[in-house]
């Protein structure tokens, strides 16, 4: 059993700094944080290999224990090159964000905030169902249009007239002041 405290402390500091940086808003700092995290992880794997030893170049006279463990080394080698590719990709993202929006910040998702403010209104769920007593209504038996009493129902963050809300539920017929939905406007 061998636990190299020097390596582990370096790892801990790199992790701490990396975490601090990825909690930033600036994309550049987040990328730097990721690079520190990758380095920290490489050190962790390296430390798992035990004592420093000979370079793992095979020599018949050398006992296996005298080499530094080659397996963690192979893993780290893979990790280094992948980190390079990821870094390049992140750089591409940073450049693109900057050239499109002139900002280097991670923005809050406005849509998520809007969703959080939305009441649980759903026009489909909350409209009153008209009583239908036939699948084959005669022309004169059309149910009367919803009375325009000025009542409103909450729709999203705003209110809309109850009559308009009910009319939206009937594709093909448009009440004044409402827009046709995707299935609407068949007339």
């Amino acid at each position, binding site marked *: 059993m061998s*636990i*190299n*405290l*020097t390596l*582990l*402390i*370096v*790892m*801990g500091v*790199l992790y*701490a*700094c*990396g*975490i*601090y940086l990825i*909690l930033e808003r*600036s994309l550049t*700092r987040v990328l730097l944080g990721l*690079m520190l995290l990758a*380095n920290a992880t490489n*050190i*962790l794997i*390296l430390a*798992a*290999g*035990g*004592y*420093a030893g000979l*370079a*793992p*170049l095979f020599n018949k006279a050398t006992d*296996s224990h005298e*080499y*530094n463990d*080659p*397996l963690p080394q192979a893993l*780290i*080698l893979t990790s*280094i*090159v*992948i980190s*390079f*590719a990821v*870094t390049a990709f992140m*750089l*591409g993202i*940073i450049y*693109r964000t900057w050239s499109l929006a002139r900002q280097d910040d991670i923005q*809050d998702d406005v849509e998520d905030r809007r969703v*959080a403010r939305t*009441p*649980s209104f*759903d026009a*489909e769920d909350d409209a009153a*169902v008209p009583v239908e*007593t*036939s*699948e*084959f209504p005669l022309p004169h038996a059309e149910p009367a249009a919803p009375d325009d009493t000025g009542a409103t129902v909450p729709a999203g963050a705003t209110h809309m007239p109850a009559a308009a809300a009910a009319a939206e539920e*009937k594709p093909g017929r448009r009440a004044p002041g409402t827009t046709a939905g995707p299935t609407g406007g068949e007339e």
Partner: protein
Amino acid sequence: MITVLAVTFVMAAVAPLIFQRMQRNSFYLLAAIPAGATVWLALQFGSVYPGSPGFVEEILPWIPDLKLELAFRMDALAWVMSLLIMGVGSLVLVYCARYFKNSDDHLGGFGAQLLAFAGSMFGLVTADDLLVMFIFWELTTVLSYLLIGYARTRLSARRSALQALIVTTAGGLAMLVGLIIVGNAAGTYRISAVLQKAAELGAGPAQGTIAVAVVLIIAGAVTKSALVPFHFWLPGAMAAPTPVSAYLHAAAMVKAGIYIVARLAPGFSDSPYWLPLVLGLGLATMLVGGYRALRQTDIKLILAYGTVSQLGFLTMVVGLGRPDAALAGLALLLAHGLFKAALFLVVGIIDHQAGTRDIRRLSGVYRSSRALGMVAAVAAASMAGVPLLAGFVAKESVLEAFFHYSQDPAAGPWGLVLLLGIVLGSTLTVAYSARFMWGAFAVKPGVEPTPFKAIRPSFLFVPAVLSVLSIVYGLWPSPVDAWIQPYAALFAPAAGGEGSGPGHLALWHGLTPALGLSVLAIAAGAGMHYGREVVERLQSRVPDWVDGDRAYQHTIGALDDTAVWVTGRTQRGSLYFYLAVILTVAFAVPLAALIIANKPIPGGIYLIDPNSPLQLVVAVGIVVGALAAVRANKRFLAVLMVSVTGYGIALMFALQGAPDLALTQMLVETIVLVAFVLAMRSLPAGLRDRTGGKYRVVRIIIGAAFGVTMIFVAIYAMGARVAPPISLEFPKLAYEGGGGLNIVNVTLVDIRAWDTFGEISVLAVAATGVASLIFVRSRGERLRAAAMVPEGSVGRRTGVERNSRDGATLAMVRRFADISRDAWLVAGRTLAPERRSIIFEVVTRLIFHSLIIFSVYLLLAGHNLPGGGFAGGLTAGLALTVRYMAGGRFELSEAAPVSPGSLLGAGLATAAASGLVPLLLGGQVFQSAIVQIWLPVFGDVKFVTSTIFDIGVYIVVVGLALDVLRSLGAEIDEHFEGAPKTEPERHAETYVGPVESVAGAAARGQE
């Protein structure tokens, strides 16, 4: 059975095509399938009934590992159910051919769904595997959703379809849990085997669990068969086209719950909660349904609530678990299927011809169509239990069975309560049957006679057939009796002599108490109808107690509110918030585990490695670099500080005994640094902390806690090691198996070649990602020869005012950078004079080829010495970087006249070939071979085929480096050069080369 199912579903799949050609008459063709199945059932009669096994089995292995098999079993119960499903199914399809118009939309899909539904019901009743049965159960749920929602433009149809789906699926999920518990406890999912073990399970150690499982299964049946308190979905589902109501909501789907109860009753009716649930809910449903039916003004809703009532009734009878009740239950089920389907179809005709189903607007329909009236009268009379008809025969035997039950001392007072409840329910049935007939057909004073179009015989044909069957069944019940007897025989005869056997269905049993009760019910029901105004007045005074529909709305509404609340609290749209939560969990959980476990710190900890004491010094450098990177408020300073840690780690690798890692890390750090500079040259120099001071403390705490936790986790994890490392074998393996001395390299290209292959695939993907982020539209494969480009045109600075400080600097630089001198590089002359550096060009000229040769050396020597494909490829990438920096983007395309995409593809292909070729030669994937050859100059050469894999790695890495240079370097250059025309003010920031620092800073000062 499997053939019947297959034919049905295949036909359903092609049905839409048939409809395109034959319009609504295709329904006739579809009807032939269930009709054929009915004939097939008749042919099976011989093997299902008098024969010795009493059933036919078909088993097809499906997923043997899960013990899941397509097991089907046709016994008496399945046969009777199938007869109802297929018989009524074909009749309803025939009816559809006249109910719908050719102009109706989506008829093809509708026909397919209806046929598939018949197939699913057939599968449900014949399946002998609990899970297969459940699959068909859910299929019927989904198909019923589609069928109810046929009129997709109507709100009522959409909503009630969804309501039916949610309610029945909720019950179905409960049932699934119950089925799995039962299946696991029994050790088999075969229904027949489970039922044989039922008594043993009910008394065994798991009896409590089994009782709960049975309750869960009943919950499924309760929702599917619309029993109280979930009865509300069935009247809602009347938004479906009437043929659907006739089939799903009278004959087939709602009977699925009854079927489950009937199927399990022989085994589980002794389960502790079975009788209270089945009888209690059944009776409540029967009474609530009958009561509510009397309040409806839509004739279809009268039937719907009537169906609810009858379903409760059926559940009670079928679930009693006595032979006579079982006989009566199935008899009633068949009778109900016949008369209720007929009545629904009659309602469909009335609606179709009159344009309304409202009893306040219907008047004098009987005068318009006497034939329709007769058909309806027979069916309604059967529903009311009028003698000579099917309903009467069945109800008689039910009353008989419950009369015996009430006499049984084991039943106690509840037997009598049930009997009275059934008589009351029957009274209500008679009353609403009369109300239906009166409402649909009678002449009502004060209501105009309803205009009624004449009915074509082909339209009336189906309900007429059903009514005739009701009469035949009533007059000649003995065949039905014979069908059901084997099922009734499954039940142990009740104790006590009288009524211990199943008895028989018959029109005339003599003057029995049951007959008396029948007469009582009919008389009382008729009385209720006669005094209907009094009854209505009484009903209107009683408030609606509990409205299941409203309760459902509230539940769904509360669910919506909760969902929005939870979403609003968790999905904040802030990456910082998410990361903080995730990371806090990531350190808090292991930390808590460490504290709770409270293990002593393992031994073997040392601060200074005796083999490598210098590590401590390097460690200090790395830590300082990391802290400085955090503190840095200039962009490039922060990047440089991170690089310091990176180079420090390369040193650490070297000190630890890992030359390959040190080499690779050095090369990567250098290329990354260049990539950073290239990508970030347009971004502002300052790096402000925009997260705000409020969160800084939180970030410090999370970061520090995470770091400390990782240290302790690592200490304990390494201290927990007990086995010798697997890699002790690697040196031998590498030398003898892989034929190489560099153990790390052999590990990469041979021992763990799969791993490396995955990695280079990731590299290719990431490189492509970078290119697509920068090039956006095309991948930028176009290459232009430097010869086509005018001298000194690339990167030329324009738009600088002559008299400004900037202009003076530029003029100075131009004077010294003489355009006329020869270029040291091929494309050097394309660069603007102020961008050229003679020293850089000369040095590049000197070292480029050496670097390339060195990279090839690293690649080939890597098998035995430090190096390999990764290091070699990175070195070549570095060489290209130098060329690009010195000579601009045309120099880059002169140096590497191939597209990075082709390089990536070629590299991956080479690596893949080195894996596949051994396979073709009869070896393993990625198997390597050692070839000893003699070459003229080199003498004996030992070549290991895994080197080919390494060459693939090399090419991929070069491709990655080239992609980075082409994207972040060359393409961004072009973006800048294109920029001044539209945005002159930004041009000031677009420098690469010697004047960058001066001019860039000056330009930024102006802003």
